């Protein structure tokens, strides 16, 4: 394999990667179902989520830690919801520390989780497996 061919393959792959990245940054991810719920408070809640390292224990869309539950749909989960979330954040549990957050911070975090809830579903429980190993997600979970 000549050096010229190696360089060609390398730069070819790199060029494709850049184009691919451009589509991921734009068209591939423009669908945000929760957009109208992204208030200024929710934006601040997202930064608080990072500041308190919530992701070390919790997941969003199955990504994050394993100590606590996935929080993607905790707001719309029957029997849970906003007041349930607020009470956990305020008081902590034997597993979860009480971070002694102010009322405003608790509200911001809840608002962020409300936005997350509207963006999609996790975990996916209602689906159909196709012949090629892919899945078709159904609307009702």
């Amino acid at each position: 394999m000549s050096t010229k061919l190696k360089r060609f393959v390398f730069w070819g792959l790199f060029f494709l990667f850049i184009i691919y990245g451009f589509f991921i940054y734009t068209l591939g991810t423009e669908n945000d179902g929760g957009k109208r719920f992204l208030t200024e408070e929710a934006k601040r809640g997202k930064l608080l989520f990072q500041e308190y390292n919530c992701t070390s224990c919790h997941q969003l869309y199955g990504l994050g830690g394993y100590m606590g539950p996935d929080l993607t749909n905790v707001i719309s989960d029957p029997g849970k919801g906003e007041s349930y979330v607020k009470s956990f954040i305020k008081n902590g549990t034997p597993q979860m520390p009480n971070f002694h957050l102010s009322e405003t911070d608790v509200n911001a975090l809840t608002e962020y989780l409300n936005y997350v809830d509207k963006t999609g579903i996790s975990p996916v429980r209602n689906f159909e497996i196709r012949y090629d190993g892919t899945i078709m997600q159904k609307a009702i979970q």
Partner: protein
Amino acid sequence: MKKEVGVFFIFLSIVALLAGMLFGSLSAFQFVFPGFFDLLPFFKNRPLHVSLVVSWIFLSAIGGIYYYLPKYCNLPLFSRKMAVIHIWLFIVTGLLILTCYLFGKFGGREYWEFPAILAIPIFISWVLFAFNYFKTVFKKIGQWPVYLWMWATGICFFLFTFTESYLWVFPYFRDNLIRDLTVQWKAYGALTGSWNMLVYGTAIFVMERIKGDETVAKSKLAFWMYFLGLTNLLFGWAHHIYIVPTVPWIRYLAYAISMTELLILSKIIWNWKSSLEQAKKDYYFLPFRFLVASDVWIFLNLILAILISIPAVNVYTHGTHITVAHAMGSAIGINTMILLSSVLFIINDVTKFNFPKIQKNIIRAGFWITNISLLTFLTFLTIAGAEKGILVIENKLSFRAIMQEISPYLISFAWSGLGIFIGLIMTTLPPLIAMFQYLKKK
């Protein structure tokens, strides 16, 4: 120190590995016994563990490159001074990061939980490394062996993907969760691939030296395998975000690309068949033993990787402990085994130190304890993950009920993790002492 910069990197890497394993073991017990060692809660322990173990991988791989280039490739470093600045930048930033974690100062994201400002010195240290590496290797006339390509690729893509993983600081990315998660995991997927390039390049280099055969690293096959690996690095990451509602083609492309890993799998099986006799002969050489172990873990981990790339399987395994098994299998089974092989190779080389029989036996026992514990560790994680997946999807149980069901497996996983830690202490302590004595003398 200027002359021994590679060895100093390796020395620090072992310290980082042992410290990382200590925090990892604490985290594992906190995971199964809430309230255990409350002085350092889980949300601080986990980033300490992850950052130190990632540092082990980078420091040992970089140390190897700084050592091998002048000594074996006849390529004196362009600037030793720059390499020294590199390591001091790394040490100072590393200490700042650890302090932030200990005091609960976060602000970043999973794996880079430290405040974003600390990403700047990390980036600068890699720019210095890249500059030094390319100024050094461009002196080489004639065909580059594949490991020089792999190291170059690892360095370039680290810089690219590390930057990409910080795009969240811009509201355009941060204010759309779907885009934010997708870009974050695109970056992480390729970032892992970039350090794999550094590590696998090291494996090929060490193997070439042990065998004394320089043709393998320049063969056509080696380059096709490298390009296949690179393609997977660039486009095969999306199994992390199959359930995130992006456009479908992102998933289909990743699925198709991931299946090309079957070619790598077949190649491993073919290699085993054809080189068994030689492997038996070299097995008694310690660095080679670790390379053989990594080969077995590559095989097992690749099967798992291919399976979780199939969307119908991924829907059950995503967000479960099977993902952890996959990550740990790569980090310990593959990367750590290869890097330990490189570390032992360098120690033999620099110190001309023949370990006394008792130390050799301790390393050998450590090797077996690590590998057997890793096997049980991954088995329990896989069982726990599979059961969790079924209980979530089919039985629709609550988180608490699921954790109760799988807790026996998780307790066994924590004890196996302690076994890995003990095994790694036995494996790395004699080399660490030898290296310390060597550096002290210098």
